[in-house]
């Protein structure tokens, strides 16, 4: 189910810069890393000193974003697989793997790399490699 998507270097660089700005804002005011899997795991107990309200507010902010975008510039282009089994398996792997590995694309891939963390560099290399191999198998071996 591969769909051609246009290469958007300018919009993507601007989008990336906004993500970076968000990460800096969160560190400057709240002293927190902008890692989504960490923020998600903070809405689960135990709550000792983990700033649940801050985590919840961040998540609400994320969900407000496509609505704001929609109001200003129209629908958000999106192609999501409707294969229920595939999406359940993928969701379990993403949820478990990011928390077990202490980070995702944002925590390791953005904040960790920006801190020149060796752990994050390794983690980012591993999830990128696993992603490349998975898509190769999915599209070019299994032909999904």
């Amino acid at each position, binding site marked *: 189910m591969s769909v051609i998507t246009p290469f958007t270097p300018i919009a993507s660089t601007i989008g990336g810069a906004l993500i970076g700005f*968000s990460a800096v804002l969160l560190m400057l005011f709240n002293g927190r890393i902008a890692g989504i899997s960490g923020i998600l795991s903070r809405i689960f107990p135990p709550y000792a000193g983990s700033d649940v309200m801050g985590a919840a507010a961040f998540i609400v902010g994320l969900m407000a974003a496509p609505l704001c975008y929609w109001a200003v510039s129209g629908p958000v282009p999106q192609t999501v697989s409707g294969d229920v089994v595939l999406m359940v398996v993928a969701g379990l792997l993403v949820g478990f793997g990011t928390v077990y590995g202490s980070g995702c694309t944002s925590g390791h891939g953005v904040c960790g790399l920006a801190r020149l963390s060796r752990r994050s560099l390794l983690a980012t290399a591993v999830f990128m490699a696993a992603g490349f191999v998975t*898509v190769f198998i999915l599209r070019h071996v299994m032909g999904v």
Partner: protein
Amino acid sequence: MLRITISFIAGLVFGLGLVIGGMANPAKVQNFLDLFGTFDPSLAFVMAGAVVVTFIGYRLVLREHAPLCGERFHLPTATEIDRRLIIGPALFGVGWGLSGFCPGPAITSLPLVAKGTLVFVPAMLVGVGLARLVLQRPTTKTLETTGGTT
């Protein structure tokens, strides 16, 4: 209250960055990962933009002794390379490749109510909960070291 407002604004800006950068579209993410097919390098530009801004911003911010609304910076303290750091990202990468979703874009996409998203997000939350259970069992490390990097 300022702390919670900042969290909301940071989430909103982060989500807008994902949407504007095209990362709320799983097809675009999968195309980045499809070097031998419909390759779209946009994700690399999102990463580069985000890392450069964060690198510079963190250099300035972390010179201070404390954040503006908190008593200390919550920075990851772990430095050792362990098996968890291979297993976790490997599992995550497989799920990421299968769906084109990582946690941020999946949550951000919820209001767009695609069927796949509505299935993916609850499964992801179950995965998060399972990992928390597994991590709490063997050692009683604090959350700052187990979940703190993210």
